[in-house]
């Protein structure tokens, strides 16, 4: 994967599938990866066999295969979203404490999550709207946010109302502090960290146009390599 100075790599914003394909391409060969529920699950459609990626599901499995259909469906073999899945050769099963030890212990290379908001320093809000009458439900979100070596977020950059989900400080309740390393959106890929937010590439907009949408200072990624 080459990291380049800010480049508009697409003339139009990316669709969900294009974004999923981009995330898939950015995952290093041989990685162990957890794909969160929802949009991140799409990434699995774009992983190539040559990449040799091993998928983890927090309900106790490494080597998860694609969604099960028809006769493949087995009630004892589901993913974290409770969808029937399949088992790839070389898989393994373990109990819940061992499964979350894999996450908390920092053994996963990448976790891909959806988000309501991401802050300039990588805080993540993706579990709770904070509405007073909402019934809270967290599942494995906080564990996923805390554990992986890299936490990638996939989301649209803007809410339906046009507000940026990349924010100075999250207004929704936090899932994790300073945990997000990269944010994939329809309009740009952002790198987040203690030094602020860099833009790796934009889709259908210039860096200046992007900055007008986002309330945090953006800078272009410095060129790395050739």
């Amino acid at each position: 994967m080459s990291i380049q100075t800010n480049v508009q790599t697409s003339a139009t914003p990316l669709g969900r599938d294009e974004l999923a394909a981009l995330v898939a391409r950015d995952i290093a060969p041989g990685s162990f990866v957890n794909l969160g529920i929802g949009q991140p699950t799409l990434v699995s459609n774009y992983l190539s066999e040559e990449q040799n990626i091993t998928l983890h599901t927090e309900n106790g499995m490494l080597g998860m295969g694609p969604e099960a259909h028809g006769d493949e469906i087995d009630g004892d073999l589901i993913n974290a979203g409770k969808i029937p899945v399949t088992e790839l050769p070389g898989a393994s099963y373990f109990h819940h404490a061992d499964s979350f030890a894999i996450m908390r212990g920092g053994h996963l290379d990448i976790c891909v999550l959806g988000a309501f908001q991401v802050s300039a320093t990588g805080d993540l809000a993706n579990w709770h709207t904070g509405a007073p009458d909402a019934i809270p439900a967290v599942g494995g979100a906080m564990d996923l946010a805390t554990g992986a070596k890299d936490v990638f977020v996939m989301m649209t950059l803007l809410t339906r109302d046009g507000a940026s989900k990349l924010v100075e400080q999250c207004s929704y309740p936090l899932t994790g502090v300073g945990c997000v390393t990269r944010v994939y959106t329809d309009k740009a890929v952002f790198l987040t960290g203690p030094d602020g937010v860099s833009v790796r590439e934009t889709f259908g907009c210039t860096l200046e146009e992007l900055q007008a949408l986002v309330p945090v200072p953006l800078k272009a990624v410095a060129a790395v390599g050739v």
Partner: protein
Amino acid sequence: MLNFIDTVGEAVADIKDGSTVMIGGFGNAGQPFELIDALLDSGATDLTVVNNNAGQGDQGLALLIKEGRVRKMICSFPRQSDSWHFDTKFKAGEIELELVPQGNLAERIRAAGAGIGAFFTPTGYGTMLAEGKETRLLDGKWQVFETPIHADVALIKALKADRKGNLVYRKTARNFGPIMAAAAKHTIAQVSEIVPIGALDPENVVTPGIYVNSIVKVA
């Protein structure tokens, strides 16, 4: 002491009002439905239930909640599209909820079985689920003080038991079974098959019989 019991009704007959009951399963996988139904029939009430969820649809744990038998839920994900019985009770203020991140739930259950009095975990630090909890900077990460979850009874589902009470599970239905079996004073396992001693390879036993008290075969 290990007992092989003929019916799920007898298996749960000694569960007392006010007990803390762990129930295995994640989604439907590994849910001991027959034992939960028997617990409902037993009339036991004022229960604290530990499960990943808070019941779905009109079956199992959801019915226990609907019937007002559950005083408190300890779980990670109560809100689902079909968790209407929990939702109703919760909004009416008729059920208490302790919401725990799933990995902390698993580790707290594991700690109970392993005799660990408390531990520090990075999960949840800086979030509303850690509010009021002791924190400490360890290994360069802020971590939260968490305590074990013990139970009076665990209801779990396994694939096979041998006559020593050793258990093996099937695929992702393993989930909370092994750690709940260790965390409860009395563990009741429903299994699909009971095999003779020696039929399970000692290398492949997942839950040693020391953790199992009652076994009932469910067809």
